[in-house]
Structure formats: structure tokens, C-alpha cells
């Protein structure tokens, strides 16, 4: 039988990490200092790492803030939404 494409995709992602990522997108409303605070507070990132991720969101339009299992990424996205950040889940693209 032929496997549907989606299933092939799932299989190919096994072994190269958990295959999902949490992406935070730029918006014109949230303050830069607030975004840094959220990254430090929620993910426990260092001030330098949090600042770096915030700047990536700001200048490149988005940043991958976490990678791992899908369920874990969904929890992160829920938390980001609680803070008012615009976050999404997707398969890792590398």
C-alpha cells in the first residue's frame, strides 16, 4: 500500500528531534520590554537570550522560541496567548 504523504512526513520527522516549534510573530502593539519579560519569565531565558529573541521577532518578523514535542509546543502557545503574544505551532522546517 502507499502511505499518505502526511504519514510519511510524520515518520521522517522522528529521530530529528521532536519535530515541532513554537513561533512568536511581530505585532505593533506589544512593548519590546514586555516581550523580553515574557521570554524571561515563562521560558526562563537569560536576559541576553530573551533580548536576542525579542529583536529577532521585531526585525525579522518572527522567531522560533522553542522546539520539541507537539503537545509541549501547544502548551507554550497557550501560555504565549495568555500573555497576549501572537504565537503559533508548526513543524520544524530545517
Amino acid at each position: 500500500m502507499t502511505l499518505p504523504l502526511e504519514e510519511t512526513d510524520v515518520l521522517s520527522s522522528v529521530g530529528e528531534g521532536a519535530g515541532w516549534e513554537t513561533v512568536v510573530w511581530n505585532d505593533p502593539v506589544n512593548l519590546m520590554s514586555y516581550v523580553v519579560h515574557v521570554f524571561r519569565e515563562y521560558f526562563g531565558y537569560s536576559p541576553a537570550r530573551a533580548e536576542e529573541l525579542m529583536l529577532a521577532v521585531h526585525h525579522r518578523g518572527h522567531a522560533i522560541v522553542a522546539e520539541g514535542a507537539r503537545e509541549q509546543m501547544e502548551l507554550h502557545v497557550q501560555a504565549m496567548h495568555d500573555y497576549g503574544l501572537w504565537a503559533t505551532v508548526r513543524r520544524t522546517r530545517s
Partner: protein
Amino acid sequence: MTGQTVILEMARREAAHLADLVEQFAALLDSDSVDGDPAIARLSPDAYPEDSAAADEFRRLTRSDLLERRRADSAVVLASLAEDGAVPRIADVDDDVAMDSRVLTLDPAESAAWLRTLAALRLVLASRLGVTAEDAHDDDDPRFGVYEWLGYRLEGLLQALNE
């Protein structure tokens, strides 16, 4: 940056305005039109922009809890504003004492609720105002003044937490 108590000073008139905004927000969360409201949509954006079935499923499973946490945060903010006496309606604030400061003491959980609520109020206002750029402003629309004041308060609270 966390774990400490924060002292916040706020004029009585300001506290009355903030309480009014938070009450409006809480009413929006409880309104029948919550599902079609673009501001609420911004507070619970698509988790899977490229997969509408997964996005719908995520929203179905998480949205009511998210709105419930928003309600809880709002209640915390209103409670801390009323810590040393009920906050009067804006129109009932006596001009003689309007600029007198109220001193609010926020524990870490309260600060967190304040941050999330101030950020949410800005998102709701930005949605109503059609803000699409960071420097959006219109001198003729007083809501921009409110929007910027919320940003000033949010920034101040973040600074206090970092001290």
C-alpha cells in the same frame, strides 16, 4: 525579576479610569458577541495558521479556559485597585482629591495579572483603533491617549519588577 512585592502609586482619577477599562474588558469577555469580536480573536489567535482543522480544534479545546484566565486576571486587578476602599466611578471622583495618590502593593501573582491585563487592554484598544504600526497616533481620538497611558503604566510596572 520576580518574587518581590511592587509598590505602585496611582492618582485616584487614574485608578477610577483603569477600573472602568478593566470592567469594560470583563464585560466584553462575558458578552454574547465574544466569538465574533476581532479584539477577542486577537487574544486567541490561530495556533495553526496553515492548518484550519488543527486551528479549530486547538481553539475548541483551549479558548474557554483562556477567556476564563482573562476573567480571573481582571478580577485580581479590580481587587487590588479596591484594596483600600472601593474605587469610585470616574464621574464621582471628587476633583479635590482626584490627583491624590493611592498606593497599591502588588505581590508577584498580582503583578503578573496586572501585566497580562494591561497588555490585553492595549491589544483590545489597538484592535478598535485599527493600529497597524508602532507609531500609530491620532490627536483627535482620545482613545489613543488611553492606549499610550496603558503603555506607560505597563512599562512602569516592568521597570519596577526589574529593580
